[in-house]
């Protein structure tokens, strides 16, 4: 009975999950048929003209996520080194606990702070360049950096602290300082876990919707003149998630092509994030290498 119930419920879950993935694939078919690979490379999105190019949104997503990671990673790794290598006992638990709580703050609250504080700070910061508003890709990136900071920190700490204490003791016994032990013993061994922490943090940054939605400006068809041009960073933009969270989703329903394009964006986002997550997990399997 227990066995039967276990299998039934589990299989049902599996069917639901796979069914959802399949649904995304099927529903997006009209868009793929209409635009082909142009869906990925097209830089123009005008649904009334049936033009669906996702590239500006992919660009926005990547800019925001990479900004977030670039800002958060040094701070996160520093904090993780401190909690794993310097702090011990209760102090360690207290700091780690605080950081884990930070990870639990709802994204809408981060978004609110973004709207009311960060947006103005960024506006003032950018004022020499005469920005239109504080709603920019940069604002989204900074806000995301704060949001993924705890995730990356706690994952990095887990992998640093996973290096056996005996190795630290042995290296300290040889006369190495704490910093030297960290650099020669701990970090090299924890490296895959640190990379995984970055990838999982990146995954979270790519998939975050609400907070970015509130501060990114949501301007369509922002495409840089040359690929590494910094200009669009200080301007409003659109990411995959903010497009999917916008009211255009309601308009799209009913027109199979437009809806297909929206679902295509969701599929694109899904494959980006799940790809990163799975790569991260391959590098540092949860619960140790043997799990």
């Amino acid at each position, binding site marked *: 009975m227990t066995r039967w119930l276990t299998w039934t419920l589990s299989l049902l879950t599996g069917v639901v999950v796979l069914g959802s993935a399949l649904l995304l694939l099927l529903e997006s078919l009209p868009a793929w048929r209409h635009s082909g690979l142009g869906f990925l490379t097209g830089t123009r999105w005008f649904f009334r003209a049936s033009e669906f190019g996702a590239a500006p949104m992919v660009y926005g997503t990547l800019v925001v996520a990479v900004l977030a990671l670039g800002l958060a990673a040094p701070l996160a790794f520093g904090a993780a080194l401190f909690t794993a290598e310097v702090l*011990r*006992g209760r102090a360690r638990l207290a700091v780690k606990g605080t950081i884990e709580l930070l990870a639990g703050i709802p994204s809408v609250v981060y978004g609110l702070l973004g709207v009311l504080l960060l947006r103005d700070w960024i506006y003032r910061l950018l004022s020499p360049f005469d920005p239109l508003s504080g709603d920019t890709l940069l604002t989204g990136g900074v806000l995301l950096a704060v949001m993924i900071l705890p995730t990356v920190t706690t994952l990095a700490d887990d992998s640093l602290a996973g290096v*056996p204490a*005996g*190795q*630290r*003791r*042995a*290296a*300290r*016994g*040889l*006369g*190495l*300082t704490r910093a*030297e032990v960290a650099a*020669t*013993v701990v970090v*090299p*061994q924890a490296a895959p876990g640190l990379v995984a922490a970055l990838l999982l943090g990146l995954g979270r940054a790519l998939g975050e919707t609400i907070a970015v939605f509130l501060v990114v400006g949501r301007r369509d068809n922002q495409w840089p003149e040359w690929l590494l041009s910094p200009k669009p960073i200080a301007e409003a933009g659109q990411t995959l998630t903010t497009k999917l969270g916008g009211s255009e989703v309601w308009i799209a329903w009913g027109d199979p092509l437009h809806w297909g394009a929206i679902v295509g964006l969701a599929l694109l986002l899904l494959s980006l994030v799940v790809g990163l997550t799975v790569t991260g997990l391959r590098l540092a399997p949860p619960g140790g290498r043997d799990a």
Partner: protein
Amino acid sequence: MAEALRQRSASSEPIVSAATTEPRIVLSCNDLEVRAGGTPILRCPELEVRAHGVTGVIGPSGAGKSTLLKCLNRLIELEPGLSVRGRVELDGTAVYGRRTDPARLRERIGILFQQPVVFPGSIARNVLFGLRWVRRPPRRTWPGHVQRALRAASLWDEVEYRLDRPATELSVGQRQRLCLARTLAMEPEVILMDEPTSSLDPASTEAIEGLIRRLAERHTIVLVTHDMDQARRVTDRIACVCLRDGVGVVAPSVPTATGLPDPGCRRAVEAIPGTPGRRVIP
């Protein structure tokens, strides 16, 4: 019973080099006390470690032998919740002095643990591990350092042709000698050994014990052991740690040949499984 123990130790003739002149004191503890939170767990009123010889520390498990050892090179500071007060001196410098750099100190006082700890990487890398980062000798001298240290640890003949192989390929006994080589490469004045043979088979144990005797000619060794036989085989002097009211107390060292004077310590040591003379109650 106690008489028997004393006679046996006298008759087994341990390898004691009879000192003609008063030997130099390398390491000394005075009124040392280790506390966990507020409660004392180990007291060492007086302990002297003489140069060039093996000083044994014996006692039942849990009495604080390893804790005592870690006090000597301040590795105790890595244990959360423990605090140390009192004096430890290494050749006249205060180990816990405000201006003493613990890292420098640990270069001079090497340590070998119960379980060998090898780092990921090759055998050669393991030998050089401390040296490379602490002393930073020029790269061309590395092979010489590796060979010298491995020879001193009697491991050279077994690994000469596979220095680049991962250290994890070695047996536990070999790993322990590799750890010894790693410590020896730093040319420490004092080597602390925390039951270095407890995880080894009899053959490896014998090899390590022989090594300890040879090393004692040039180094000062403090050996923690729970095996009275081993103490008789290897040590010159012996100090006993035993539990009194839950606190480990270190008695001053005495020549191993004369046996343990303190009856409490004798009883504690005799109670250790494997010690000859232990009364087995049927």
